[in-house]
């Protein structure tokens, strides 16, 4: 295999002083972040804070203008084990494929050019589909699945890919609470497999209750750590600026959502 072997001694993710420009605008400024295998980190911050940019940079789709990104000790383009789950609104749901087809896409890089899926690949796909609980719906068109099922399908694709690092961009947006908790339950499967998971999330309550760590982002890392240390008034003011009153009012009963994410996907 021509892709990088995982260096067991290295962190799942180590970013040092990473800056990214989108055109002429700085989207991320000297971001330093380390995540261990099995750790589950929520990335929170206002719209336009660079959450998607951060995930895409880690995925190796965007390239930093300075700083370094190492995934298991190697630069992202050396890996095929980074699973990137798109925002649901960024997907063409009328595309003529079934859930099984999409999960099989996770195998494409391991198959290599000019190879067809083997029995082993089909087994891995079937297992992944079963893990995410879509066995009965596997041969449905993707457009016929509900939002939660669609998100679980992408998680299945990441399983089939045998991902070592999961990047999820706003996976909870537009889902009801049942679907949300189904996805959170699946994340424990990734923890069991030692997969590091980064989730861009705008629900501060969920982020503080269900994740190991919170990274508060607004172009730079404003705070990084346990939720109690991160979600302080000072930090939230720094991250959300003028919106902080709404956030703070909402934080009192700890039923928070930043209500800023109804404008469609961030770029």
């Amino acid at each position, binding site marked *: 295999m021509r892709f990088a072997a995982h260096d067991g001694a290295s962190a799942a993710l180590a970013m040092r002083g990473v800056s990214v420009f989108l055109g002429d605008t700085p989207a991320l400024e000297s971001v330093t972040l380390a995540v261990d295998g099995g750790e589950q980190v929520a990335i929170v911050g206002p719209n336009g804070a660079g959450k998607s940019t951060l995930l895409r940079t880690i995925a190796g*789709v965007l390239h930093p203008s300075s700083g370094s990104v190492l995934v298991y000790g190697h630069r992202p383009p050396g890996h095929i084990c980074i699973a*990137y789950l798109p925002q649901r609104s960024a997907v063409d749901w009328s595309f003529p494929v079934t859930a099984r087809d999409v999960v099989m896409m996770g195998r494409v890089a391991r198959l290599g050019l000019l190879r067809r899926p083997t029995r082993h690949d089909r087994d891995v796909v079937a297992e992944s589909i079963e893990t995410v609980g879509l066995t009965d719906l596997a041969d449905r068109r993707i*457009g016929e699945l509900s939002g*939660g099922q669609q998100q679980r399908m992408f998680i299945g694709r990441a399983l089939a890919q045998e991902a070592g690092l999961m990047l999820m961009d706003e996976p909870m947006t537009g889902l009801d609470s049942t679907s949300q908790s189904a996805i959170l339950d699946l994340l424990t499967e990734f923890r069991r497999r030692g997969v590091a998971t980064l989730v861009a999330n705008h629900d501060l309550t969920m982020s503080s209750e269900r994740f190991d760590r919170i990274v508060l982002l607004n172009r730079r890392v404003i705070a990084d750590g346990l939720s109690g240390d991160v979600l302080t008034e000072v930090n939230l003011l720094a991250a959300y600026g003028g919106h902080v009153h709404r956030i703070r009012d909402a934080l009192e009963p700890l039923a928070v959502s930043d209500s800023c994410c109804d404008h469609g996907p961030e770029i």
Partner: protein
Amino acid sequence: MLDLVTEGFARAVLEPFSYPFMVRGLLAAVTVGAVCGMVGTFVVLRGMAFLGDALAHAILPGVATAYLCGATQRGTLFWWALLTAVGASLGVGAISRSERIREDTAIGIVFAGMFALGIALISTMKSYTVDLAHVLFGNVLQVSWAHLRTMWTCSGVVVLLMVSFYKEMVVLSFDPVFASTLRLPSRFLHYLMLVLIAVVIVVSLQTVGVALAVAMLVTPAATASLLTGRLRRMMALAAGLGAASGVAGLYLSYYLSMAPGAAMVLVATACFLVAFAISRRRRIPTTRSG
């Protein structure tokens, strides 16, 4: 009585093909319809219809130059057209990566310009109108066996490449970001797709011409997309519909003395309208939330 009807029908079906040029025309129409339908499936899925049309028009200066150089042989024209088309498709690939101007604007400017250049070149020739009409609208009834063999070779190569890179192309079309995290050769695949479209347009040049090539590429595939939700079925159906439109168009042109290229496109369009009407009634929901 029934025998007479059957016999009359059989004669009506078979009669056109007592002429060898009609047989060659039929083979050309079926080839073009099928291969356009296959490649067109990806054109429709990736929203590249405008680009396909632009590419077709960009071929004109290449063909015109060949005329000017005194190439009267159809075979020579074919290779000139192919060269221009491949060059143009690589040009499009380069333009679409520029950030200074919107992609569709750039394509519109470059290809309207190339089309004008082609017309300007052809207009300096004596047989201007006849030659221009052939390039613009094709002339399927003048296809030679040699030309058919070239068409089959090119179509064969296109189908082989499509089959070889099928799974990568599907991933790239569905989720480009995921394709790049899988480290698939996205840029190579994108250019390959453009070159395949260019080759298919050149193959269809003699049949439907520059002006209508995009219809054979897009219409049967769009019809198929309304009728099935599975990619492989959609491709097969698009190829079948394309070939059937070609054959039906040829009959129409024989009995109503229409331009064959236009007749084929009209049949394809009629199929699309029927499918559109049917699918509106039993609409498949595209997304549900929750």
